[in-house]
């Protein structure tokens, strides 16, 4: 009796402490694993920044739910007959968050800033096709290309930034704009809303489309289990209204849940195990083939990650380039052992070796990829059965990037590739590719990639990609693993949810919150 009275008094005390600080009813809250690296669209190179920028800025064109192009800042557009340019008529009456009018000069400035060699960002290559920009009055822009571009609209999904907020087209990562952005998007930064742990936005009252939600709060919550708690405890009423990515092991918590709905969405991303081809043993195709036959991907996927598709090549099954005629290899430990024996890799104790070269590899992993440890243990036990040993090295994220991608000091590694719109694998597998960190060099693959890059006909391009898929499934530059079924956990108080692949919040203005 005493304890019951005590707990009730404590409950009353806690409730009274809170009474003056009730939540805003239409604040949409969501946690992110990482803080956005920048709020300036050019430098928004991580996914949390991509999502935040989506709320703050608009592009000329968006891709709508049906996958069609739809005008955002552009009221209309017309591609030149020779496909050598595109002419935009801009939406009139659009205002920046500081009240200044949006005009054609802003579009020209965005392109010029992106092309300025002193603006240092990775996506500059996406603007290389633009030869010239002509401003035609206040609301007309004519963009000329350096060559005919089919499907030109897809090149204009980049966000527009205001000319009046910058003193020059050379924009640095330390620019004040990074912390105090001014966009035309449905939400603007609240005064003092950019803190280390959270970013608070309020609705842009002059937005050209009505928004149903009045405030957004992104909070940095690095621990995934804490994110789940925030959604689970409060059921989205007082806690957070969405968890962007639910780890598969947590999905059952929200199945048939009264307060939270599982919202599937598509991401163009796939997992892989990369071989360092500068390692003599791993440069041997027989070794790579044996590894592929020894590892049971289905078992690893089901045990540690949940649902997904086992892949046979460098595309997701939903991709137009995925070659369904190439079946993913199954597990065959016996055949893996035979292949290694025939290739001269003989067992000496637990490890196979040929001369002085042992099948003993350093497996470097990023600590931030939480499932790595469990996956590694599975892979280690599978490979042990065929006489291959792997030693783990766990490093933090910055060190991982330096060790694997810059210094290339690894034998095996596990990671994920995500793509924005187009699944361009040229940089991954061409011997001169910018992201070919594995040292893969195959003349057939190079020729096919070069031919595909020069192809203007989309149908032909698709066929070439399917050929590439088949070739890479045979050559195994990576061991292609799987693509996951991705789910967000979203409170049932959130209405009209549509999650845009990759960008997530593109249609957020249409989302609503019921009390």
């Amino acid at each position, binding site marked *: 009796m005493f304890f019951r009275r005590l707990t009730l008094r404590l409950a009353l005390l806690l409730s009274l402490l809170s009474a003056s600080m009730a939540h805003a009813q239409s604040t949409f809250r969501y946690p992110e694993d990482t803080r956005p690296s920048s709020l300036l669209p050019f430098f928004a190179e991580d996914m949390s920044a991509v999502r935040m920028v989506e709320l703050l800025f608009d592009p000329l064109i968006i891709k709508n739910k049906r996958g069609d192009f739809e005008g955002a800042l552009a009221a209309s557009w017309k591609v030149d007959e020779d496909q050598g340019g595109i002419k935009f008529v801009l939406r009139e009456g659009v205002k920046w968050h500081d009240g200044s009018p949006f005009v054609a000069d802003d579009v020209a400035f965005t392109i010029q800033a992106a092309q300025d060699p002193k603006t240092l960002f990775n996506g500059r290559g996406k603007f290389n096709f633009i030869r010239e920009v002509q401003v035609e009055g206040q609301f007309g822009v004519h963009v000329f290309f350096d060559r005919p571009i089919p499907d030109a609209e897809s090149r204009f999904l980049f966000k527009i930034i205001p000319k009046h907020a910058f003193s020059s087209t050379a924009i640095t990562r330390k620019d004040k704009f990074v912390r105090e952005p001014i966009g035309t998007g449905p939400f603007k930064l609240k005064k003092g809303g950019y803190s280390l742990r959270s970013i608070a936005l309020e609705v842009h009252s002059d937005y050209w489309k009505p928004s149903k939600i009045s405030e957004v709060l992104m909070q940095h919550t690095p621990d995934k289990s804490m994110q789940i708690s925030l959604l689970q405890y*409060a059921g989205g009423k007082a806690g957070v209204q969405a968890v962007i990515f639910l780890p598969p092991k947590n999905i059952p918590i929200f199945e048939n849940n009264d307060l939270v709905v599982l919202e599937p969405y598509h991401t163009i991303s796939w997992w892989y195990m990369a071989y360092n081809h500068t390692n003599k043993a791993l440069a041997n195709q027989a070794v790579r083939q044996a590894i592929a036959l020894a590892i049971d991907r289905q078992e690893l996927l089901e045990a540690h990650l949940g649902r997904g598709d086992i892949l046979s090549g460098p595309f997701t099954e939903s991709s137009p380039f995925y070659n369904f005629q190439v079946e993913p290899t199954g597990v065959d430990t016996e055949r893996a052992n035979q292949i290694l024996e025939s290739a001269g890799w003989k067992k000496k104790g637990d490890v196979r070796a040929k001369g002085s070269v042992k099948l003993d590899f350093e497996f470097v992993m990023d600590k931030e990829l939480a499932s790595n440890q469990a996956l590694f243990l599975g892979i280690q036990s599978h490979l042990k059965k065929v006489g291959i040993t792997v030693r783990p090295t766990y490093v933090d994220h910055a060190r991982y990037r330096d060790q694997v991608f810059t210094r290339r000091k690894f034998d095996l590694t596990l990671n994920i590739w995500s793509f924005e719109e187009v699944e361009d694998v040229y940089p991954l597998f061409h011997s001169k590719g910018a992201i070919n960190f594995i040292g893969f060099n195959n003349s057939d693959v190079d020729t096919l990639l070069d031919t595909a890059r020069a192809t203007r006909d989309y149908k032909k391009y698709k066929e070439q990609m399917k050929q590439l898929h088949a070739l890479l499934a045979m050559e195994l530059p990576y061991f292609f693993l799987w693509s996951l079924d991705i789910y967000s956990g979203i409170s049932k108080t959130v209405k009209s949810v549509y999650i845009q692949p990759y960008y997530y919040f593109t249609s957020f203005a249409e989302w609503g919150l019921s009390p």
Partner: protein
Amino acid sequence: MLALLAVTARRLGAALVLLIGASFLIYITIRSAPGDAVDAITPMGTPPEIKAQLAAEFGLDVDPVTGYGAWLKHSIVGDFGESLVIRPGEEVMAMAAPRFAKSLLLGGSALFLCLALTMLLSILMGEPTVRHQGLTGFLYFVTAAPSFVAAVFFTQGVNEFVRGVVEGSGYETPPWYPIPISTESVMPYFFAGIVLVIGDGLFMDMLNGIRAEILAVRNSQFIAAIRAKGASTLPHIAKNLIVPAVSAYVSRLPLVLGGVVIVEYVFTLDGGGYMLLEASKQRDFPVVVGLSVLFTASIIVLNLVADVIRTVVDPREVARGG
């Protein structure tokens, strides 16, 4: 008085040398760690020429020792540089100082609370008895968990309590629920303070130390003499406890500030500890060095203040060399 000033001046000189040495070590360590701020912010496939230009923009193109020299030159006049990653372009001290002050207040208050509680408990417990063994055993068990474990259990416990009792009783749920939701409420700081008191074995460590000191003073001959004269012993016991209490406080402050870093991260409190961890993860070296200097300087300054207090209370400290 002159002797006191001399001791203070000598300590200040030593503190300055210590601060420079510590900043050098921190700077060199963070600059020499694999991966840098450019690696942390640029995506895969960033052309090497862009990475090189960014490295130059961030001042990473000079060797760590030269870089430290430049940093020291600027920091002497109060310019600790700008953040590279976590709040790009913002002056380090402008962003670090208020957050550090929060952390110091959190850690300092938690330690003060711990000291007050342990003193009170020591006085209440009096002479050791068999009954006390059960109590101290229980306290050892409760307070032995590392602060990050205590923080996780505490948040889960409070969340469960609010869900089960507060919501269940029909009361309005507090704005800080569920922890760690982003809120303006001060309650998460209060909870973090409790975790600091009970985590890392701090409470029992303090209790043992303070209790031993109280017992030693109470059982000393001069207290017995005062008691025999019929005079009040309390002022004498209190005065003789100032030095051990100040020593206990100052000696445990570094441990508590270490705990603050972890606890702020679990509760996602926008303080210096959370900032230090974020900056370290992203190799934002100006922020890491700036904050580390603040943490080190605060410990040095508090030690200095403690020395002065000790010397004022007990002038024999000067004779012992301060």
